[in-house]
């Protein structure tokens, strides 16, 4: 039996992912980090970006937000404010959201609270788009 890692991705709204996996690529603060079983215990901050899970030779891509990772030899527990599997990302909706947020911020007509909301929405939508595009664009060429 191949060694596996127990991966849990937890957001305030749900447990987004829970499975035994072979490898996980985490967008840590000091650079992307591939984690295999028997990794040295480590805790790190996570930046918004792409998380890649390898299970049974298949890759799953997730767009994740800001948060933390706790890595032990057998477990990876990831605590983030957003986690969306790539196939659930709605590219047109994300694009529209980016457009809307950028326009709103640019025009500067917003009240305080709307700027705060727009900035966070922009950050999240951009992270989703990044994951979606990074995977598809190079293969088209």
């Amino acid at each position, binding site marked *: 039996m191949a060694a596996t890692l127990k991966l849990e991705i*937890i*957001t*305030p*709204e*749900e*447990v987004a992912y829970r499975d035994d996996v072979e490898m996980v690529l985490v967008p*840590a*603060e*000091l650079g992307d980090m591939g984690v295999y079983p028997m990794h*040295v*215990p*480590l*805790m*790190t*901050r996570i930046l918004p970006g792409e998380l890649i899970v390898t299970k049974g030779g298949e890759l799953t891509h997730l767009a994740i937000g*800001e*948060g*933390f990772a*706790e890595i032990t030899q057998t477990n990876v*527990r990831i*605590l983030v*404010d*957003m986690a969306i599997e790539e196939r659930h990302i709605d590219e047109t909706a994300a694009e529209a959201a980016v457009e809307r947020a950028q326009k709103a911020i640019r025009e500067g007509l917003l*009240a*305080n*609270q709307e700027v*705060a*909301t727009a*900035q*966070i*929405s922009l950050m*999240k939508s951009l992270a989703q788009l990044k994951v979606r595009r990074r995977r598809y664009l190079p293969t088209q060429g």
Partner: protein
Amino acid sequence: MAANTRDIRRRIKSVKNTAQITKAMQMVAASKMRKAQTAAIASRPYAQELARLLLPFSSLPADDESFAHPLLQERSGGRELVLLISTDKGLCGALNTNLLREVSQFDPANTDFVCVGRKGLQFLVRCKCTVLADFEIKDNFSYFNAEAVAKFCMDQFVNGKVNRVTVLYTNFVNTLTQSVVRHQVVPVRSFEIGRVALEDGDGASDTRPIPDTTEYILEPNQSDFLGSLLPHFIFFKVFHFLLESRASEHSARMVAMKSATDNAKQLIKDLTLEYNKVRQASITTEILEIATAQMILS
């Protein structure tokens, strides 16, 4: 007499309509309350993990100089920011009244307000309080809505505009009881996360060992790591308070609507009794009249 029975019939009909509406509102509130509770339960795993990661913090002595973070520093005096979480709609009993009574304990000259919910905003505007921002939060709000609110409040503190951030919200005790709670979120004083999130039936996660920070490599370093946990802790707390307020709102509305329905039913009963009495009286008079007429004729 005939006109009177018709009046009563009309009144019964209109009360019945009211009862139907309040009954429907009661059902809607009940289902929304369940939804808010489900969301609170779904946030438990995150709360537990966050609490576990924060444990090393809580073991630090209060005046530990080795770890200082802006979000932990107490600054005395200065302005205070109050995040007031009220409801958008009324018809929820005394919920908002109790909440807004608490507002008067803050000195309006020295306090800035941030509002969630229209009722609170209307009140503050009437009282001529300073309202910095008003966030509109729908019923099925997501974590990122809460994050926007919390970030705004936190930024006011970090920029030095205010020296304290307090949240005023209604805590969901049970369906019949909601209590007004005043909780200081910034600077961070306690590392407890609310009751609903941590009150836990499965117990499985409690057996996990407490992370010992000396066994882990911490990237980039210990104080930065712990420091960056703090904003997330604050965001999550605000998210949790919003969930509590929502659950309180819907349960208060459910109870208010239930008593309205009960009152309407009682009213229908009383009116029906009166209607029957009037009807009986008119029948008796009619029989009397007929009998008298017959006696005269014979």
